[in-house]
Protein backbone atom coordinates (compact mmCIF):
# COMPACT_ATOMS: atom_id res chain seq x y z
CA UNK A 1 0.00 0.00 0.00
CA UNK A 2 2.70 2.38 1.06
CA UNK A 3 4.79 1.51 -1.94
CA UNK A 4 1.95 1.77 -4.40
CA UNK A 5 1.00 5.24 -3.27
CA UNK A 6 4.58 6.44 -3.17
CA UNK A 7 5.33 5.07 -6.61
CA UNK A 8 2.48 7.08 -8.10
CA UNK A 9 3.60 10.31 -6.44
CA UNK A 10 4.99 12.79 -8.97
CA UNK A 11 8.65 13.80 -8.82
CA UNK A 12 9.53 17.36 -7.91
CA UNK A 13 10.39 18.15 -11.57
CA UNK A 14 7.17 16.53 -12.70
CA UNK A 15 5.34 18.54 -10.11
CA UNK A 16 6.71 21.82 -11.48
CA UNK A 17 5.36 20.91 -14.94
CA UNK A 18 2.15 19.80 -13.28
CA UNK A 19 1.82 23.13 -11.47
CA UNK A 20 2.38 25.00 -14.73
CA UNK A 21 -0.22 22.98 -16.63
CA UNK A 22 -2.78 23.17 -13.87
CA UNK A 23 -2.16 26.89 -13.37
CA UNK A 24 -2.97 27.45 -17.05
CA UNK A 25 -6.17 25.47 -16.63
CA UNK A 26 -7.05 27.53 -13.57
CA UNK A 27 -6.41 30.66 -15.62
CA UNK A 28 -8.82 29.46 -18.30
CA UNK A 29 -11.36 28.65 -15.60
CA UNK A 30 -11.27 32.30 -14.53
CA UNK A 31 -13.46 33.05 -17.54
CA UNK A 32 -16.20 30.81 -16.09
CA UNK A 33 -17.43 33.56 -13.78
CA UNK A 34 -20.91 32.12 -13.39
CA UNK A 35 -19.43 29.08 -11.67
CA UNK A 36 -16.90 30.59 -9.27
CA UNK A 37 -18.45 33.93 -8.36
CA UNK A 38 -21.31 32.52 -6.25
CA UNK A 39 -18.78 30.45 -4.29
CA UNK A 40 -16.30 33.27 -3.67
CA UNK A 41 -17.89 34.86 -0.62
CA UNK A 42 -18.21 31.56 1.24
CA UNK A 43 -14.56 30.80 0.62
CA UNK A 44 -13.54 34.31 1.73
CA UNK A 45 -15.30 33.73 5.03
CA UNK A 46 -13.88 30.25 5.43
CA UNK A 47 -10.31 30.95 4.42
CA UNK A 48 -10.07 34.53 5.65
CA UNK A 49 -12.44 35.44 8.43
CA UNK A 50 -12.08 32.08 10.16
CA UNK A 51 -8.28 32.48 10.09
CA UNK A 52 -8.28 35.78 11.97
CA UNK A 53 -8.03 34.28 15.51
CA UNK A 54 -4.87 32.26 14.80
CA UNK A 55 -3.28 35.21 12.99
CA UNK A 56 -4.03 37.56 15.89
CA UNK A 57 -2.76 35.05 18.43
CA UNK A 58 0.59 34.91 16.61
CA UNK A 59 0.68 38.69 16.18
CA UNK A 60 0.18 39.40 19.88
CA UNK A 61 3.16 37.31 20.90
CA UNK A 62 5.31 38.50 18.01
CA UNK A 63 4.74 42.09 19.11
CA UNK A 64 5.63 41.29 22.71
CA UNK A 65 8.82 39.44 21.82
CA UNK A 66 9.93 42.01 19.25
CA UNK A 67 9.48 44.85 21.71
CA UNK A 68 11.49 43.06 24.41
CA UNK A 69 14.13 41.92 21.95
CA UNK A 70 14.69 45.38 20.48
CA UNK A 71 14.92 46.89 23.94
CA UNK A 72 17.52 44.27 24.82
CA UNK A 73 19.55 45.11 21.69
CA UNK A 74 19.21 48.92 21.92
CA UNK A 75 19.72 49.48 25.64
CA UNK A 76 22.94 51.45 26.17
CA UNK A 77 23.66 51.89 22.46
CA UNK A 78 20.65 53.34 20.65
CA UNK A 79 17.87 55.62 21.98
CA UNK A 80 15.02 53.41 23.16
CA UNK A 81 12.37 55.17 21.06
CA UNK A 82 13.85 53.18 18.17
CA UNK A 83 11.94 50.26 19.66
CA UNK A 84 8.82 51.75 18.05
CA UNK A 85 10.57 51.97 14.70
CA UNK A 86 11.82 48.43 14.79
CA UNK A 87 8.56 46.94 15.97
CA UNK A 88 6.57 48.86 13.36
CA UNK A 89 8.86 48.29 10.39
CA UNK A 90 9.55 44.65 11.13
CA UNK A 91 5.96 43.68 11.74
CA UNK A 92 4.57 45.62 8.79
CA UNK A 93 7.16 44.57 6.25
CA UNK A 94 8.24 41.09 7.27
CA UNK A 95 7.00 39.31 10.35
CA UNK A 96 3.35 40.21 9.94
CA UNK A 97 3.01 38.92 6.37
CA UNK A 98 5.42 35.98 6.70
CA UNK A 99 4.29 34.61 10.07
CA UNK A 100 0.65 35.07 9.15
CA UNK A 101 1.34 33.41 5.81
CA UNK A 102 3.08 30.48 7.46
CA UNK A 103 0.29 29.99 9.95
CA UNK A 104 -2.28 30.17 7.19
CA UNK A 105 -0.22 27.82 5.01
CA UNK A 106 -0.83 25.26 7.74
CA UNK A 107 -4.45 26.09 8.33
CA UNK A 108 -5.67 27.02 4.86
CA UNK A 109 -3.30 24.92 2.73
CA UNK A 110 -3.94 21.78 4.76
CA UNK A 111 -7.67 22.35 4.87
CA UNK A 112 -7.92 22.83 1.11
CA UNK A 113 -5.68 19.86 0.27
CA UNK A 114 -7.52 17.55 2.65
CA UNK A 115 -10.95 18.61 1.38
CA UNK A 116 -10.11 18.40 -2.31
CA UNK A 117 -8.05 15.25 -1.80
CA UNK A 118 -10.99 13.54 -0.15
CA UNK A 119 -13.25 14.71 -2.95
CA UNK A 120 -10.78 13.32 -5.48
CA UNK A 121 -10.42 9.86 -3.98
CA UNK A 122 -14.16 9.52 -3.37
CA UNK A 123 -14.90 10.45 -7.01
CA UNK A 124 -16.70 13.65 -6.06
CA UNK A 125 -14.44 15.58 -8.43
CA UNK A 126 -15.35 13.18 -11.24
CA UNK A 127 -19.01 13.61 -10.30
CA UNK A 128 -18.60 17.36 -10.60
CA UNK A 129 -17.20 16.94 -14.11
CA UNK A 130 -20.05 14.64 -15.14
CA UNK A 131 -22.45 17.39 -14.05
CA UNK A 132 -20.68 19.56 -16.67
CA UNK A 133 -18.73 21.67 -14.18
CA UNK A 134 -15.12 22.62 -14.74
CA UNK A 135 -13.26 21.39 -11.66
CA UNK A 136 -10.90 24.38 -11.76
CA UNK A 137 -13.72 26.89 -12.03
CA UNK A 138 -15.69 25.26 -9.21
CA UNK A 139 -12.93 24.20 -6.83
CA UNK A 140 -9.70 26.05 -7.57
CA UNK A 141 -10.57 29.57 -8.69
CA UNK A 142 -12.82 30.56 -5.76
CA UNK A 143 -10.27 29.25 -3.24
CA UNK A 144 -7.25 30.90 -4.85
CA UNK A 145 -9.07 34.21 -5.32
CA UNK A 146 -10.48 34.13 -1.80
CA UNK A 147 -7.06 33.49 -0.28
CA UNK A 148 -5.44 36.16 -2.48
CA UNK A 149 -8.02 38.70 -1.38
CA UNK A 150 -8.24 37.70 2.28
CA UNK A 151 -4.61 37.08 3.27
CA UNK A 152 -3.85 40.84 3.09
CA UNK A 153 -6.93 41.59 5.19
CA UNK A 154 -5.93 39.07 7.84
CA UNK A 155 -2.36 40.34 7.67
CA UNK A 156 -3.54 43.93 8.13
CA UNK A 157 -5.33 42.90 11.33
CA UNK A 158 -2.27 40.96 12.45
CA UNK A 159 0.01 43.95 11.79
CA UNK A 160 -2.28 46.26 13.77
CA UNK A 161 -2.50 43.86 16.69
CA UNK A 162 1.23 43.07 16.57
CA UNK A 163 2.22 46.73 16.68
CA UNK A 164 -0.32 47.38 19.42
CA UNK A 165 0.96 44.51 21.53
CA UNK A 166 4.54 45.74 21.03
CA UNK A 167 3.43 49.20 22.09
CA UNK A 168 1.61 47.94 25.19
CA UNK A 169 4.65 45.83 26.09
CA UNK A 170 6.96 48.81 25.65
CA UNK A 171 5.01 51.14 27.90
CA UNK A 172 4.35 48.50 30.56
CA UNK A 173 7.53 46.45 30.69
CA UNK A 174 10.17 48.77 29.30
CA UNK A 175 11.36 52.17 30.41
CA UNK A 176 9.53 53.78 27.50
CA UNK A 177 6.57 56.13 27.27
CA UNK A 178 3.79 55.99 24.75
CA UNK A 179 5.04 59.23 23.23
CA UNK A 180 8.52 57.82 22.73
CA UNK A 181 7.23 54.60 21.18
CA UNK A 182 5.01 56.50 18.77
CA UNK A 183 7.84 58.90 17.96
CA UNK A 184 9.97 55.96 16.79
CA UNK A 185 7.05 54.40 14.96
CA UNK A 186 6.20 57.60 13.06
CA UNK A 187 9.73 58.80 12.42
CA UNK A 188 10.63 55.93 10.13
CA UNK A 189 7.19 55.01 8.81
CA UNK A 190 6.62 55.13 5.06
CA UNK A 191 3.41 54.20 3.32
CA UNK A 192 5.42 51.68 1.35
CA UNK A 193 6.04 49.71 4.56
CA UNK A 194 2.39 48.86 4.70
CA UNK A 195 1.60 48.15 1.07
CA UNK A 196 4.80 46.16 0.66
CA UNK A 197 3.61 43.78 3.36
CA UNK A 198 0.10 43.59 1.98
CA UNK A 199 1.21 42.92 -1.59
CA UNK A 200 3.44 40.14 -0.32
CA UNK A 201 0.66 38.60 1.71
CA UNK A 202 -1.69 38.63 -1.30
CA UNK A 203 0.87 36.63 -3.26
CA UNK A 204 1.34 34.29 -0.27
CA UNK A 205 -2.40 33.69 -0.16
CA UNK A 206 -2.59 32.85 -3.85
CA UNK A 207 0.38 30.51 -3.63
CA UNK A 208 -0.79 28.70 -0.49
CA UNK A 209 -4.27 28.12 -1.89
CA UNK A 210 -2.93 27.05 -5.29
CA UNK A 211 -0.60 24.50 -3.69
CA UNK A 212 -3.43 23.18 -1.55
CA UNK A 213 -5.73 22.86 -4.55
CA UNK A 214 -3.18 21.23 -6.84
CA UNK A 215 -1.94 18.77 -4.25
CA UNK A 216 -5.48 17.93 -3.24
CA UNK A 217 -6.55 17.31 -6.82
CA UNK A 218 -3.48 15.11 -7.32
CA UNK A 219 -4.28 12.89 -4.32
CA UNK A 220 -4.47 9.18 -5.01
CA UNK A 221 -4.80 6.01 -3.04
CA UNK A 222 -7.35 6.75 -0.32
CA UNK A 223 -6.68 8.10 3.16
CA UNK A 224 -2.93 7.65 2.93
CA UNK A 225 -2.77 9.57 -0.35
CA UNK A 226 -4.88 12.37 1.10
CA UNK A 227 -2.52 12.56 4.09
CA UNK A 228 0.51 12.78 1.82
CA UNK A 229 -1.14 15.42 -0.35
CA UNK A 230 -1.99 17.49 2.73
CA UNK A 231 1.55 17.32 4.10
CA UNK A 232 3.03 18.25 0.72
CA UNK A 233 0.60 21.14 0.35
CA UNK A 234 1.74 22.64 3.66
CA UNK A 235 5.44 22.14 2.91
CA UNK A 236 5.13 23.57 -0.60
CA UNK A 237 3.01 26.45 0.69
CA UNK A 238 5.71 27.37 3.23
CA UNK A 239 8.43 27.04 0.61
CA UNK A 240 6.47 29.23 -1.79
CA UNK A 241 6.11 31.90 0.91
CA UNK A 242 9.86 32.01 1.51
CA UNK A 243 10.66 32.17 -2.20
CA UNK A 244 8.06 34.89 -2.82
CA UNK A 245 9.32 36.79 0.22
CA UNK A 246 12.80 36.94 -1.28
CA UNK A 247 11.36 37.76 -4.71
CA UNK A 248 9.39 40.76 -3.46
CA UNK A 249 12.37 41.99 -1.45
CA UNK A 250 14.48 41.91 -4.60
CA UNK A 251 11.84 43.53 -6.78
CA UNK A 252 10.30 46.15 -4.51
CA UNK A 253 13.04 47.24 -2.09
Amino acid sequence: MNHSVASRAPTREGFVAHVGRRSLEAGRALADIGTWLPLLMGQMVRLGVDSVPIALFIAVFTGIVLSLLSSYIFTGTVPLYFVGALVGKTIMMELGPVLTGMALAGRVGASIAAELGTMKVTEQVDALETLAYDRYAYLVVPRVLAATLMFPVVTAFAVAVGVASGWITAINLLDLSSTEFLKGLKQFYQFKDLWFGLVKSASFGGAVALMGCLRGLSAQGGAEGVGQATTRAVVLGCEAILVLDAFWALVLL
Partner: protein
Amino acid sequence: MILLDNLTKTFGPRTILSGVSLEVPDGQNTVIIGASGAGKSVTLKLIVGLIEPDGGRVLVDDEVVHDLARDELAALRGRIGYVFQFAALFDSLTVAENIRLGLVKRGYDAGVIRERIEESLAVVDLSGTEDKLPAELSGGMRKRVGIARAIALKPRYILYDEPTTGLDPITATVMDRLIIRTRDLGVTGLVVTHDMRSAFSVGDRVAMLYQGAIRQVGTVDEIQASDDPVVRQFIEGRPGPELVEPVARRSVG
Protein backbone atom coordinates in the same frame (compact mmCIF):
# COMPACT_ATOMS: atom_id res chain seq x y z
CA MET B 1 -26.24 5.57 -29.55
CA ILE B 2 -22.96 4.93 -27.78
CA LEU B 3 -20.28 3.13 -29.77
CA LEU B 4 -16.97 1.90 -28.43
CA ASP B 5 -14.53 1.34 -31.25
CA ASN B 6 -11.38 -0.68 -30.55
CA LEU B 7 -10.62 1.10 -27.26
CA THR B 8 -7.25 0.61 -25.61
CA LYS B 9 -6.08 1.93 -22.28
CA THR B 10 -3.04 1.29 -20.11
CA PHE B 11 -2.10 2.66 -16.71
CA GLY B 12 1.68 2.46 -16.36
CA PRO B 13 2.66 -1.14 -17.00
CA ARG B 14 -0.92 -2.40 -16.68
CA THR B 15 -2.96 -2.96 -19.81
CA ILE B 16 -6.59 -2.49 -18.85
CA LEU B 17 -8.32 -2.41 -22.23
CA SER B 18 -6.77 -3.89 -25.34
CA GLY B 19 -9.37 -3.40 -28.05
CA VAL B 20 -12.89 -3.04 -26.68
CA SER B 21 -15.61 -2.65 -29.29
CA LEU B 22 -19.24 -2.49 -28.28
CA GLU B 23 -22.48 -0.94 -29.46
CA VAL B 24 -24.95 0.36 -26.87
CA PRO B 25 -28.33 0.57 -28.63
CA ASP B 26 -30.79 3.30 -27.73
CA GLY B 27 -33.66 2.55 -25.40
CA GLN B 28 -32.13 -0.57 -23.91
CA ASN B 29 -30.09 -1.50 -20.86
CA THR B 30 -26.74 -2.92 -21.86
CA VAL B 31 -24.79 -4.60 -19.09
CA ILE B 32 -21.04 -5.10 -19.06
CA ILE B 33 -19.99 -7.94 -16.79
CA GLY B 34 -16.48 -8.94 -15.86
CA ALA B 35 -14.15 -9.65 -12.97
CA SER B 36 -12.98 -6.93 -10.58
CA GLY B 37 -10.20 -4.97 -12.25
CA ALA B 38 -11.31 -5.99 -15.74
CA GLY B 39 -11.72 -2.36 -16.80
CA LYS B 40 -15.48 -1.93 -16.52
CA SER B 41 -15.36 1.37 -14.63
CA VAL B 42 -12.53 2.59 -16.87
CA THR B 43 -14.82 1.98 -19.84
CA LEU B 44 -17.54 4.18 -18.32
CA LYS B 45 -15.04 6.95 -17.55
CA LEU B 46 -13.83 6.84 -21.14
CA ILE B 47 -17.38 7.33 -22.36
CA VAL B 48 -17.85 10.60 -20.41
CA GLY B 49 -14.35 11.81 -21.16
CA LEU B 50 -13.06 11.65 -17.61
CA ILE B 51 -10.05 9.80 -18.99
CA GLU B 52 -8.71 9.56 -22.51
CA PRO B 53 -8.08 6.35 -24.41
CA ASP B 54 -4.64 5.43 -25.66
CA GLY B 55 -6.23 4.16 -28.86
CA GLY B 56 -9.63 3.73 -30.45
CA ARG B 57 -12.67 5.98 -30.21
CA VAL B 58 -15.79 6.52 -28.17
CA LEU B 59 -18.72 7.86 -30.16
CA VAL B 60 -21.80 9.26 -28.47
CA ASP B 61 -24.53 10.40 -30.86
CA ASP B 62 -21.92 10.25 -33.65
CA GLU B 63 -19.57 12.62 -31.80
CA VAL B 64 -16.07 11.41 -30.99
CA VAL B 65 -15.83 12.17 -27.28
CA HIS B 66 -12.10 12.78 -27.16
CA ASP B 67 -12.11 15.20 -30.10
CA LEU B 68 -14.59 17.50 -28.40
CA ALA B 69 -13.63 20.94 -27.15
CA ARG B 70 -14.19 21.65 -23.46
CA ASP B 71 -17.56 23.35 -24.05
CA GLU B 72 -18.73 20.60 -26.40
CA LEU B 73 -17.73 17.97 -23.85
CA ALA B 74 -19.70 19.81 -21.17
CA ALA B 75 -22.73 19.81 -23.51
CA LEU B 76 -22.29 16.09 -24.15
CA ARG B 77 -22.10 15.41 -20.42
CA GLY B 78 -25.44 17.17 -20.14
CA ARG B 79 -26.93 14.24 -22.03
CA ILE B 80 -25.25 11.57 -19.91
CA GLY B 81 -26.08 10.79 -16.30
CA TYR B 82 -23.46 8.96 -14.25
CA VAL B 83 -24.22 6.92 -11.14
CA PHE B 84 -20.99 6.27 -9.27
CA GLN B 85 -20.13 3.06 -7.45
CA PHE B 86 -20.17 4.76 -4.05
CA ALA B 87 -22.63 7.45 -5.16
CA ALA B 88 -19.98 10.24 -4.99
CA LEU B 89 -22.43 12.63 -3.39
CA PHE B 90 -20.98 15.97 -2.34
CA ASP B 91 -20.77 15.39 1.38
CA SER B 92 -20.98 19.05 2.39
CA LEU B 93 -24.25 19.50 0.48
CA THR B 94 -27.72 18.26 1.37
CA VAL B 95 -29.59 15.78 -0.81
CA ALA B 96 -31.53 18.59 -2.49
CA GLU B 97 -28.37 20.63 -3.05
CA ASN B 98 -26.67 17.61 -4.59
CA ILE B 99 -29.46 17.28 -7.12
CA ARG B 100 -29.74 21.03 -7.58
CA LEU B 101 -26.09 21.45 -8.60
CA GLY B 102 -26.43 19.94 -12.07
CA LEU B 103 -29.72 21.72 -12.69
CA VAL B 104 -28.25 25.11 -11.82
CA LYS B 105 -25.43 24.52 -14.29
CA ARG B 106 -28.00 24.02 -17.02
CA GLY B 107 -29.63 27.33 -16.21
CA TYR B 108 -33.08 26.17 -15.08
CA ASP B 109 -35.10 28.63 -13.04
CA ALA B 110 -35.83 28.06 -9.38
CA GLY B 111 -39.34 26.70 -9.97
CA VAL B 112 -38.21 24.07 -12.45
CA ILE B 113 -35.33 23.11 -10.19
CA ARG B 114 -37.67 22.60 -7.25
CA GLU B 115 -40.01 20.48 -9.38
CA ARG B 116 -37.19 18.36 -10.76
CA ILE B 117 -35.79 17.72 -7.28
CA GLU B 118 -39.20 16.62 -6.00
CA GLU B 119 -39.87 14.46 -9.07
CA SER B 120 -36.52 12.71 -9.06
CA LEU B 121 -36.64 12.00 -5.33
CA ALA B 122 -40.15 10.62 -5.75
CA VAL B 123 -38.93 8.26 -8.49
CA VAL B 124 -36.31 6.81 -6.13
CA ASP B 125 -38.75 6.77 -3.18
CA LEU B 126 -36.76 9.26 -1.15
CA SER B 127 -39.23 12.12 -0.85
CA GLY B 128 -38.70 13.96 2.40
CA THR B 129 -34.95 13.53 2.51
CA GLU B 130 -34.20 16.85 0.82
CA ASP B 131 -32.52 18.40 3.84
CA LYS B 132 -30.48 15.40 4.91
CA LEU B 133 -26.73 15.24 4.45
CA PRO B 134 -25.21 12.19 2.72
CA ALA B 135 -23.65 11.12 6.02
CA GLU B 136 -27.16 10.68 7.43
CA LEU B 137 -28.15 8.22 4.70
CA SER B 138 -27.54 4.49 4.32
CA GLY B 139 -25.42 3.18 1.45
CA GLY B 140 -28.51 2.17 -0.52
CA MET B 141 -30.16 5.54 0.01
CA ARG B 142 -27.01 7.31 -1.16
CA LYS B 143 -26.99 5.27 -4.35
CA ARG B 144 -30.64 6.13 -4.92
CA VAL B 145 -29.83 9.82 -4.45
CA GLY B 146 -27.08 9.29 -7.02
CA ILE B 147 -29.72 8.01 -9.44
CA ALA B 148 -32.03 10.91 -8.55
CA ARG B 149 -29.18 13.34 -9.27
CA ALA B 150 -28.70 11.70 -12.67
CA ILE B 151 -32.35 11.44 -13.72
CA ALA B 152 -33.19 14.98 -12.56
CA LEU B 153 -31.21 16.18 -15.57
CA LYS B 154 -33.43 14.09 -17.87
CA PRO B 155 -30.42 12.59 -19.62
CA ARG B 156 -30.51 10.52 -22.74
CA TYR B 157 -28.09 7.98 -21.28
CA ILE B 158 -27.29 6.84 -17.76
CA LEU B 159 -24.09 5.00 -16.90
CA TYR B 160 -24.30 2.88 -13.76
CA ASP B 161 -21.05 1.86 -12.07
CA GLU B 162 -21.64 -1.22 -9.92
CA PRO B 163 -25.09 -0.07 -8.79
CA THR B 164 -25.76 -3.00 -6.46
CA THR B 165 -22.31 -3.54 -4.98
CA GLY B 166 -22.37 -3.55 -1.21
CA LEU B 167 -26.14 -3.56 -0.93
CA ASP B 168 -28.32 -6.08 0.83
CA PRO B 169 -30.47 -8.27 -1.48
CA ILE B 170 -33.65 -6.28 -0.94
CA THR B 171 -32.02 -2.91 -1.55
CA ALA B 172 -30.22 -4.39 -4.56
CA THR B 173 -33.59 -5.46 -5.97
CA VAL B 174 -34.92 -1.94 -5.40
CA MET B 175 -31.95 -0.60 -7.35
CA ASP B 176 -32.58 -3.06 -10.17
CA ARG B 177 -36.21 -1.96 -10.39
CA LEU B 178 -35.12 1.66 -10.53
CA ILE B 179 -32.76 0.92 -13.40
CA ILE B 180 -35.55 -0.87 -15.28
CA ARG B 181 -38.01 1.95 -14.52
CA THR B 182 -35.50 4.47 -15.81
CA ARG B 183 -35.11 2.51 -19.04
CA ASP B 184 -38.89 2.41 -19.36
CA LEU B 185 -38.84 6.21 -19.19
CA GLY B 186 -36.83 6.09 -22.42
CA VAL B 187 -33.33 6.40 -21.01
CA THR B 188 -30.58 4.24 -22.49
CA GLY B 189 -28.66 2.49 -19.73
CA LEU B 190 -25.15 1.11 -19.59
CA VAL B 191 -24.57 -0.87 -16.42
CA VAL B 192 -21.27 -2.34 -15.30
CA THR B 193 -21.48 -4.99 -12.64
CA HIS B 194 -20.18 -8.32 -11.47
CA ASP B 195 -23.48 -9.06 -9.77
CA MET B 196 -24.94 -11.68 -12.13
CA ARG B 197 -28.39 -11.63 -10.54
CA SER B 198 -28.58 -7.89 -11.18
CA ALA B 199 -27.08 -8.19 -14.68
CA PHE B 200 -29.69 -10.69 -15.80
CA SER B 201 -32.46 -8.75 -14.09
CA VAL B 202 -31.84 -5.32 -15.63
CA GLY B 203 -30.09 -6.19 -18.87
CA ASP B 204 -31.55 -6.34 -22.35
CA ARG B 205 -28.09 -7.16 -23.65
CA VAL B 206 -25.07 -8.42 -21.76
CA ALA B 207 -21.42 -8.12 -22.78
CA MET B 208 -18.59 -9.86 -20.99
CA LEU B 209 -15.31 -7.99 -20.63
CA TYR B 210 -12.39 -10.34 -20.29
CA GLN B 211 -8.66 -9.69 -20.60
CA GLY B 212 -9.20 -6.21 -22.01
CA ALA B 213 -11.68 -7.13 -24.75
CA ILE B 214 -15.33 -8.09 -25.17
CA ARG B 215 -15.44 -11.86 -24.93
CA GLN B 216 -19.09 -12.30 -25.82
CA VAL B 217 -22.13 -10.09 -26.26
CA GLY B 218 -25.74 -11.12 -26.59
CA THR B 219 -29.17 -11.13 -25.02
CA VAL B 220 -29.60 -12.36 -21.47
CA ASP B 221 -30.83 -15.71 -22.81
CA GLU B 222 -27.87 -16.02 -25.16
CA ILE B 223 -25.37 -15.30 -22.40
CA GLN B 224 -27.08 -17.67 -19.99
CA ALA B 225 -26.93 -20.38 -22.67
CA SER B 226 -23.34 -19.57 -23.65
CA ASP B 227 -21.02 -22.50 -24.19
CA ASP B 228 -17.91 -20.32 -23.87
CA PRO B 229 -16.06 -21.81 -20.88
CA VAL B 230 -14.87 -18.41 -19.65
CA VAL B 231 -18.37 -16.94 -19.77
CA ARG B 232 -19.85 -20.03 -18.14
CA GLN B 233 -17.26 -20.01 -15.39
CA PHE B 234 -17.95 -16.34 -14.64
CA ILE B 235 -21.73 -16.47 -14.60
CA GLU B 236 -21.67 -19.62 -12.50
CA GLY B 237 -19.13 -18.08 -10.13
CA ARG B 238 -16.72 -21.00 -10.30
CA PRO B 239 -13.15 -20.13 -9.25
CA GLY B 240 -10.54 -21.36 -11.69
CA PRO B 241 -7.28 -20.46 -13.39
CA GLU B 242 -8.92 -18.69 -16.34
CA LEU B 243 -10.41 -15.87 -14.28
CA VAL B 244 -7.93 -15.52 -11.45
CA GLU B 245 -6.26 -12.11 -11.57
CA PRO B 246 -6.50 -11.74 -15.37
CA VAL B 247 -5.12 -8.21 -15.20
CA ALA B 248 -1.97 -9.26 -13.37
CA ARG B 249 -1.25 -11.93 -15.98
CA ARG B 250 -1.74 -9.41 -18.77
CA SER B 251 0.79 -7.02 -17.30
CA VAL B 252 3.57 -5.97 -19.58
CA GLY B 253 6.94 -4.35 -18.94
